[in-house]
């Protein structure tokens, strides 16, 4: 057997993804088959826990632990009022973190992998219904996923009594109507229910009361896609894929002004330097590395001095940032850091759901201050205001993690690029020749939908 060190992506074919039968001949659905025929749900759960698989959606929560909180009813007596009529497994395919496009790659490239993964996951938690909550803009992924699901139904990999077992599982694709906050699992659940996509307070956790008040597990697409391989090759194999503390492989990406932006499946713990210089080809001609966000827009800046940090959860955390989704956003030396932070904060302010005060009113406030600084109308006090806002919107103070995420690039920029801010204020202008990122001066407009009062 050829050693596959790129399990997630080795079957990806963006032009024409594998049909069910082709996928099976390449070794697909063997993991699912093993799960439902040879293992009990508890055994699969133990296997996944042993594998030390961690969530790939940005939080890095151990998957086995998340699943273990789902109430299981061994007797499955339907007349018992306590046994819920439905249990749900939801795939979080609402990939909206800026700088992240790995799930799209998997969904468009090898949709059957996700279908197989969900069968395994549903079997483990005894879910009888699954939803793939897909970002609405991913039209191609929607089409290909539905095609894969249809094929699976035809071949009795979905529906009642899958492959002759007692396990039944229905899977649906749900395309979202938009909004970044739907990537938050409880907001996603609310959106699936047809409600406003505000996050929910936890406890109670979704495993106890989730979709329609029933036990629900939400997992990221990439996380799930590891399952068929773990089932096929075992926990030890999975751990051995990476020499690092974290197990398995990870799809890393790089974007910004690098020579070859893209994505690559590499062992967990590959260094930033390797990703940036070996795979992304280094900075584009004439540009130097100034800093980078290691895991998408809502992570803290890292500097060139951190290039040798392994890209795993613990190591990145130690140097003051987060692994997040593992997609590098690279800042070159001819781009204004203030403008970059302003751009990011504008995104977060726009995407705030509006439920809690710090995020709803704090993010636009930060935008207001940063806009003035970028336009050269900043004042010394504004830096204090920004520091206060970073403090105001930190973890524990808000209803969900959007605002703390929004504040991560801001507070790290204030730490590392404070001189840039001060220069803007002192000189009364931005010293960079902007090309592409923020071109025009921004006149602060009243919000869309409102009108000035007479």
């Amino acid at each position, binding site marked *: 057997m050829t050693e596959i060190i790129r399990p997630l992506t080795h079957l990806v074919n963006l032009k024409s993804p594998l049909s069910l039968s082709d996928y099976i001949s390449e070794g697909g659905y063997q993991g699912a088959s093993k799960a439902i025929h040879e293992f009990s749900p508890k055994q699969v759960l133990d296997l996944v826990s042993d594998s030390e698989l961690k969530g790939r959606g940005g939080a890095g929560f151990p998957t086995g632990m998340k699943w273990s909180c789902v109430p299981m009813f061994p007797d499955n007596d339907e007349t018992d009022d306590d046994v819920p009529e439905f249990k749900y497994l939801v795939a979080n395919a609402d990939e909206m973190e800026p700088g992240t496009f790995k799930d799209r790659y998997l969904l468009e490239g090898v949709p059957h992998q996700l279908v197989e993964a969900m069968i395994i996951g549903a079997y483990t938690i005894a879910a009888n219904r699954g939803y793939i909550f897909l970002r609405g803009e991913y039209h191609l992924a929607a089409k290909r996923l539905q095609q894969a699901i249809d094929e699976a139904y035809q071949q009795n990999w979905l529906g009642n009594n899958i492959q002759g077992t007692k396990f039944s599982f229905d899977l649906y694709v749900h395309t979202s109507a938009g909004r970044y906050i739907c990537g938050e699992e409880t907001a996603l659940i609310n959106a699936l229910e047809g409600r406003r996509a505000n996050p*929910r307070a936890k406890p109670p956790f979704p495993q106890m009361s989730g979709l329609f008040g029933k036990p629900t597990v939400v997992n990221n697409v990439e996380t799930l896609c590891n399952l068929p391989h773990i089932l096929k090759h075992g926990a030890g194999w999975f751990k051995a894929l990476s020499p690092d503390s974290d197990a398995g492989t990870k799809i890393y990406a790089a974007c910004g002004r690098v020579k070859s932006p893209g994505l690559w499946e590499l062992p967990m713990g590959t260094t930033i330097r390797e990703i940036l210089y070996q795979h992304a080809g280094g900075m584009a001609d004439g540009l130097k590395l100034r800093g980078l966000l290691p895991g998408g827009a809502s992570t803290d800046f890292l500097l060139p001095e951190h290039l040798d940090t392994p890209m795993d959860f613990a190591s990145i955390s130690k140097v003051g940032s987060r692994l997040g989704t593992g997609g590098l956003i690279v800042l070159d030396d001819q781009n204004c850091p203030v403008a970059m932070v302003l751009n990011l904060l504008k995104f977060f302010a*726009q995407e705030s759901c*509006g*439920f809690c005060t710090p995020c709803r009113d*704090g993010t636009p406030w930060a935008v207001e201050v940063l806009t003035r600084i970028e336009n050269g109308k900043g004042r010394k006090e504004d830096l204090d205001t920004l520091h206060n806002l970073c403090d105001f919107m930190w973890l524990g103070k808000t209803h969900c993690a959007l605002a703390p995420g929004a504040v991560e690039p801001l507070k790290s920029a204030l730490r590392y690029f404070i001189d840039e801010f001060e220069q803007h204020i002192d000189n009364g202008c931005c010293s960079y020749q902007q090309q592409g990122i923020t071109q025009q001066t921004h006149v602060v407009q009243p919000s869309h*939908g409102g009108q000035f009062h007479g």
Partner: protein
Amino acid sequence: MDDKKGTSSQKVTVYIDDIAYQVNKENNLLAGVLSQKLNLPYFCWHPSMGSVGACRQCAVTQYQDENDTRGRLVMACMTPVSDGMRITLQDKSSAKFREQVIGAMMTNHPHDCPVCAEGGECHLQDMTVMTGHNSRDYQGTKRTFNNQYLGELVGHEMNRCITCYRCSRFYNDYAGGKDFGVYGSKNQVYFGRQKDGTLESEFSGNLVEVCPTGVFTNKLFSAHYTRKWDLQSAPSVCAHCSVGCNTSIGERYGSVRRVMNRYSYDLNGYFLCDRGRYGIGFVNGEQRIKKAKGISQASPEKLTRLDVSKSLAHFRGKRFMGIGSARASLEANFYLKQMVGEENFSAGYNGQQMAVAKAHQQLLNNYFTKDRMLSLREVEQCDFILLIGEDLTKTSPRFALALRQACRNSGIEKAASMGVASWQDSAVRTISGKRNSPFFALHPTATKLDELTEQHLLLEPDDIEKVMLALTNLLGSDVNEKNNEKYEKQLKNYNTEQQLFINKIISELVKAKKPLIVTGDSLLSAKILSATNKLMACLENNPDQKKVNLVVLASASNSIGLLSLIDEKSLSSEQVLAKLSDNTMDGVICLEQELATFTDKELTLLRDNSETIIVLDHSESRVSAIADIVLPAAAVSESNGHFVNYQGRIQRFSQVHAPILPILDSWKWLSYIEKSLEFSTTSQSILRKNKTKIIETLDQLHHHFTENFTSWPVIGNVLLDQNPVARMTPRASGRTSQAANFSVHETKVVQDKDQHYRFSMEGSKPNTVKDMPFTWAPGWNSNQSINHHQVEIQGQLSNYHEDLYLAFQFSNFNHKVEQTSDDTLAGDSPADKKFNYFPQGSLFQGEWQSALTAEFDLLKYSLEKNPTLYLSTEFSESQGWSQGQWLKVTADNMNCIAQLKCDARLPKNLVYGDIYDFINNKSGITVKLSEATEPEVIQQQESRINGYQLAKENQKNILERLKISDQHIPIRFVAGGLDDA
């Protein structure tokens, strides 16, 4: 929700800033802290609506143990109370965060305070001061919104919104409204309707009190505005239905300005219905009787007692009957009855209503001599509901709101079994899903509560009775093998739907731990009440059945008080007319009676056969128009008295201000009449013998009654033990200058002879008594200050003393039921398009007094909605009629036009609608249907537009008149009788 009297629940120790407090275990931390009367700011939490954790205002620092000095920030409203927990309110980091939250809200909040109606009682103002935020860091512009027209009652100013979500949580989640909601996201969240239009919920007025800022304001109050601190208030009781919600009425410069909710643990809690809140407008209406008619005055300026006694002396020796009223106070009704004698007293009820009254009395006799009817608070704990013959959302709306909460109990229980506290509002609602406690209903029309029912049937009253009897029989029969046949046979008489209904009730009823049956008199059906009696008797006999609670609602504020005065000698209105026509009696004294059930013919008969008609009322009616003597009676805000609610609870309403003479309390007029007319009844001679003093105050009247009549309940006066309470706030302004256009001298404080409250800012603080004129606490200027006057949050008031209840002891008597035309409803004949029409309940036109309010009148002609008739889908199709088509509805000599809507639930003969002309035909009326012609439709539309414009003019005129009258504040020296200045 939780039953928190405060003393019986388990307490745990919570350390707040190192001081130990005993806190109720079931509370969240915020409610716990507030129950200790400590100041912790909050917005989105509400005692009745639980916590959501949106505003982040209530953040406190929680420590792990005594050694932890750093702690971590938690939101108090989302944190359960646990034994030994340690928190601080005073540490710098949480205090700074709380201030930052206000600062964030202030980035968009407009500087409207000087022009905002909420100013001076604004929760946002209070919390801003509490957190110490006082300077602005934000340099940017503020987002603005368009406002919407939400109707005549609630104003909309969205710029002020701080996005606390309380409004939509109340309107949609708590009150079940459908036409209001949340739109938008980020810092542009918008609360409003999908498009402009009148808010449809009967509880829309609570948005005004629930909103912590001035987004939703009381339009009636804003139109003729004054600051809260300038209002003179008194505790009152709603005069518009038998629930008896506690209110606080405010006035200034001699005119009533607004009604606010007055917290009552047992009844209305924190919410009122729109009829109670806005129905006070009639007091300022054009139809008020402000002068006496038929009394010759010596001086045109003033009506004196001498004038009255001289004029009335003409009628001395005449034989008078007294017609009492269900909307007049207990004192006035009792006094009238004693004056004219029990054989000459009428309740103003026709034969049908008397039969209903008798059946009602029977129910009270059978089940409520020892027990008490459930209060609204207790109703919210019930887990099974059978609702018979009441459109509660329109007749007793606050009760309907309580039933809505009761329906949630099975869901709340499920959440509790999963470890989710009842105050975790979102989580409980998610877990509850669509689960409702079993709820069944029977009524001739569709109602808003139908959506909560497991099953409901649309049936005429007679058919409702039949279903109830079937239910009773089946409940009473032995449920064992042998009798299954009998069971089946009985059920065969009913259609499948009804069979399912009956069977479901039987199976759910036996499982219920606190079942409730609700009925009332709104269909004027004695049959339904007696069937209820039989049902209750049957349920009592079943040893396996947990106690079934019964609630019987009545239509007016003092229906039960009046009921207690009806006995075998009481006259029906038919008997009154008979006695007049055969000359047994000479005249009638009508106490606050508009005689709604009298046809025009009967009214003419009354006039023709009476020598004298004396009317006491506050507003013009058909009766006052034909009266010989009209005496201006005081409305609820201008007098003192007691109403008895559906439970028999005797509640006092207090005078807010002394009205301009000669407007007087009805009972005061009665005392003048009594003196002048010298009745020759035995009671009268007792009255005359023992009376030495003039009756000037309510207490004196009570004393007089207690001394002479055993049937009068002893209404003690707790308030006399204390110093009188100030009606005005300590900050009332303009006192020295308000009469400056007349005289530079300051007017004297009006003397209140009743000595319960003072017409002044001097006096005891409001929180020294149970019935507070208004609510305030240091640092809490808004209605949230009630937190400081409760033993526990959402618990009983601090100064509570048990209310007095009427003892129900009715003699069993047989009242001769005179058949009325209403009993002869159409038989089985849809062929000639004859139907039994039942009016839907009407919030705004259903009660005579409140319907006189200008805004309610406007809503009558509302151009947003056409008069509608609901007909069975089957029959409509058979006639080739389609939805939206205009039909002509004919009854007696009346022709009305209404738009057709199909209702698949309706049986063959039954139709219902909201046609105004038939609003008083509560027990149904036979109508014929035909297609309306286009000119008829056009004419109807035109007349509605005209009516609307006239009503609008009326509203405007009233407002202008009120503003002018602000310049001529009536000066009274004593709030007493005619001769007191």
